[in-house]
């Protein structure tokens, strides 16, 4: 008997009372101003938000946030400040040393400032390896909470996707909060 059959047989023999799947409907929290909440929570998570103004130039805004950046990676046409397209690299290791990556978020979640990022690059490392990550997000695309978020992607097809809330962090040394454990040290969400 294969281990699979063996395990399933044991589960079958040992399962006692069977419970029904509960009704998942709930009055989950709704925010009066999702944008305001998103920005506040992002700040608390160590991230930065910037709301684009009518006269702003996107590339100039990115440059303002990261004036020192030398290697900027993006596969987005509108990001003219990019110095290379990560999709053209033959090996994801070549991404090491990237100062800023610019990616697009699909939607944001007000309750926890997470942005849903289904991987739109050849290498998912783009989302994690640079010292700073700039996420472009349509400010109309905000949901209140994770229940809404998962309903929105119930049948979504992706290979890899991540809800990202602020920069990489750790408090493993004496509970002292440090940004940039492995991933981006800074995360800037630009709300368009």
């Amino acid at each position: 008997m294969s281990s699979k059959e063996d395990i399933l047989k044991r589960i079958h023999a040992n399962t006692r009372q069977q419970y029904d799947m509960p009704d998942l409907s709930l009055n989950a929290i709704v925010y009066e101003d999702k944008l305001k909440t998103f920005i506040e929570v992002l700040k608390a998570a160590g991230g930065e938000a910037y709301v684009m103004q009518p006269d702003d130039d996107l590339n100039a805004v990115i440059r303002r946030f990261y004036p020192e950046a030398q290697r900027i990676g993006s596969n987005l046409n509108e990001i003219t400040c990019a110095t290379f397209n990560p999709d053209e690299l033959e090996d994801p290791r070549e991404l090491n040393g990237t100062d800023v990556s610019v990616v697009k978020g699909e939607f944001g979640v007000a309750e926890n400032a997470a942005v849903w990022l289904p991987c739109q690059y050849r290498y998912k490392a783009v989302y994690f390896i640079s010292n700073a990550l700039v996420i472009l997000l349509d400010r109309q695309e905000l949901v209140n909470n994770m229940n809404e978020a998962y309903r929105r992607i119930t049948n979504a097809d992706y290979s890899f996707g991540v809800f990202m809330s602020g920069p990489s962090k750790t408090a493993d040394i004496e509970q002292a909060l440090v940004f940039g454990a492995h991933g981006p040290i800074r995360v800037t969400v630009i709300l368009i």
Partner: protein
Amino acid sequence: MSTKHSIAAARFIENRPQEKWHDETLWMVRAKRDKQSKSLPEWERLRDLASAIKMYSNSHLETLLQEFEKNAIANGAIVHWAKDAEEHNQIVYDILKEHQAKNLVKSKSMLTEECEMNPFLFSKGIDVVESDLGERILQLMDLKPSHIVLPAIHIKRQQVGEMMEEKLGTEKGNFDPTYLTHAARKHLREKFLHADVSMTGANFAVASTGEIVVCTNEGNADMGTSFAKVHIATFGMEKIVPNREALGVFTRLLARSGTGQPITSYTSHYRKPPKGCEFHIIIVDNGRSEILAQPDHVKTLNCIRCGECMNTCPVYRRSGGYSYTYFIPGPIGINLGMLRNPEKYADNVSACSLCLSCSNVCPAKVDLGEQIYKWRQDLDRIGRANKQKKLMSAGMQYLMERPALFNTALKFAPLVNHLPRFMVYNAVNAWGKGRELPTFAKESFNELWKKNKVK
């Protein structure tokens, strides 16, 4: 007769400032959890739902696991089933061998600790690199985690700094957490870039989509899986959730409960392997199917390993993770240890004041304290009851069943108040150890009642 827990706890308490720091720091995390939970009016409803979803999924494992497997295979993953720790470790080793892998970079997984995978792979000549900062610090110090979410909570920055001076060549005497963390970032970045195979656990496995979900703050799982051509994800079968909507309930509870954050920095969904890469998933039983047959304890399978029961436990906070004999400490560890081997791990059931704080905060409503109470009732049956307390209990029973004798004894009880300490606090009285006994009242309730003194 002291338990191993109380002996080890006494050692932990010897370092008073460290004990105080440990206690206060974990309580601070618990307070952060309270702030988060109070920010959501639906908090208790979420806990109820989490519990109900787990009760459903753990009583439908037979169908859900097969649904998961079918969808994972359709996604291009290779699915393995492991009956026990030995089979699990062998599966991992076989994959490594097939790819002639010499090194494995892994993110935190309590399951691989449970299976004692690292020592097994080391013995086969594989370099296993832990990539969670706390886990890596412990690995370089040759120590075990003392908490399931904050593994190095018992280590001070000086110790980390001194170890890193020696192992990673950091500046002498620089114990700044930011400096040390960024030195570790550099060190581990090299490990990520050149890993042959990467490994992660899974916080959740979604049956309807065949994907696994890994939650970290550091992004170590994501970095680890970004360069190696092979990713092995392993999970205990109770990690299954039916669908993404149900997953939403858990991702709202997990970090709020464990670390007091609204969500971890990264909640990563691994569904399909990248082109040219392999994605292996191991579904592990290792005793879980046996727990299904124990109605009193089946709810331990609800656990989502958030670590909150440790943060809130007055005994854990003041005795530290190493005082427990099972590799998972705290209330959930006491229970899981007893389910693993009650004779071997019975020392831990005394590490509980039955305050039930753990049961009251558990996001998946595991009845942790109540189960510990049940295990205590079983201690005598498995031959692990405290002999002195048993003797005294037998004496008490003799007394209780004889009212005349009981009343006489009670009349003389206040004399104990005047006995010299050595006669009350000694090796014979197990209840006098580490605590002050109350003084006996001059008159018993019975006497007061008879004299009409009870208002």
